[in-house]
């Protein structure tokens, strides 16, 4: 019952922002100044999708857009493009969230996988249409694959460390009563 109080809602939204800032912070640390053959996953995107699928109300549009735009600015990416794509995809996932509630994790994984691939591909497509120089294709593919592979882990952390769980039928009743 406490799970659905407004205080809890705002705490979790703040928690999402804090998580995003932590990820930005750790990626900015000057630890890797050599070019890498291998890249890690895009954790910011994976966590955003994992939260959006579980509890759409914890990741409002404006917060996602703000965080992504900041990441674009700090990481020297073309500002706005990747954030627009991720915001669109997050909204699409949110709309599917009620349908995904009763499905197994495998279905969620596949759908998020399609979302990640779509974001990466359309990003590259727009960049190449507008003749903007871009990173080697191999790196993008590795990053996409790594994001997909680490997604179960991200989902696990989201569920158990942050306590972002899908709405259970019982919760829905109490929420309905509250509303």
């Amino acid at each position, binding site marked *: 019952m406490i799970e659905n109080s407004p205080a809890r809602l705002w705490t979790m939204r703040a928690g999402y922002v804090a998580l995003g800032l932590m990820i930005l912070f750790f990626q900015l640390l*000057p630890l890797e*100044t050599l070019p890498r053959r291998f890249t890690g996953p895009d954790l910011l995107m994976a966590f955003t999708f994992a939260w959006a699928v579980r509890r759409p109300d914890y990741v409002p*549009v404006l917060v996602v857009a703000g965080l992504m735009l900041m990441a674009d600015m700090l990481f*020297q990416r073309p*500002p706005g493009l990747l954030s627009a794509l991720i915001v669109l995809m997050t909204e699409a996932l949110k709309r599917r969230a009620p349908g995904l509630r009763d499905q197994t994790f495998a279905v969620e994984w596949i759908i998020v996988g399609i979302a990640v691939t779509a974001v990466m591909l359309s990003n590259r497509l727009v960049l190449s249409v507008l003749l903007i120089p871009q990173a080697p294709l191999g790196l993008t593919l590795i990053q996409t694959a790594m994001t997909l592979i680490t997604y179960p882990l991200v989902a696990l952390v989201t569920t158990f460390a942050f306590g972002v769980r899908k709405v259970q039928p019982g919760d829905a009743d109490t929420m309905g*009563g509250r509303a």
Partner: protein
Amino acid sequence: MAKDKTQGEDFVTPLKRMLTGVVVLCLIGIFLVWRIDSPRVERFRAQVVDAIVPSFDWAMAPVTGAVNLVRDVQSYQRIIEQNRELRRELQQMKMWKEAALQLEQENARLLDLNNVRLDPRLTYVTGVVMADSGSPFRQSVLLNVGHRDGIVDGWATMDGIGLVGRISGVGQSTARVILLTDTSSRIPAVIPRSGQAAIVMGDNTAAPLVSFLENPEKVRPGDRVVSSGDGGVFPAGLLIGQVAEDPGGRLRVRLAADYERLEFLRVLRNPGTEAITDHGALVSQAGSIPSSDEQEIDQ
């Protein structure tokens, strides 16, 4: 009750959709503005970075330190073989030191003979690396010196030994250095042994390509590569690295600067090379140099 809820959402949902639409349009707008007027948006980006990253700094320094500490501890595990390796290298270094001393003396003698003066205006500002680019696709670092220290776009940056990159983007108290390994880095260079001019092109690998060579046959792996100063971008003669050949047969530079640990970087103040603008007068004015022929005719 459930019915109540759906009715309540009926007017909220379209509003949410509209908000999403507006947000996405704004983001695409920012992207298009960046595409059309890149320098202005990049300046804005420099200001954003300038505002955000220094506020992280208090936390960044200790965390970076801690991670490096852990890495150092890991390297202790291999300490015995490292020790053996170092002894062997030290032996070689002694030999080289001897050679270097002799060369230094010879060089000093020759400079003295030629009455050469090194450029006294080539001074530098040293900055600390605060952050890297944070993305695997961009090779750059952020220094804690900026406009207030007189840093200007385009100046060369070195670590103690070799060229590291070029200043690109200056904020009030931060400056971004595009490393030689970044895909957008192009540096005019020269290979002094054969006198060949080349361009050092970064391609997101540890060793940038050497291209636009006139005679690639004349270049051998191991040759030194230094900046040529062409185009007035950089001062000439800064060490970049050594030529190496990759398995594909292409020539690359093994960089002299230690990219594994970029901590302190020197930004070279470059007053710019003077340009010669006039064509030069071949014929002296008023014919003030009398030629010997004329004198003979006069007589």
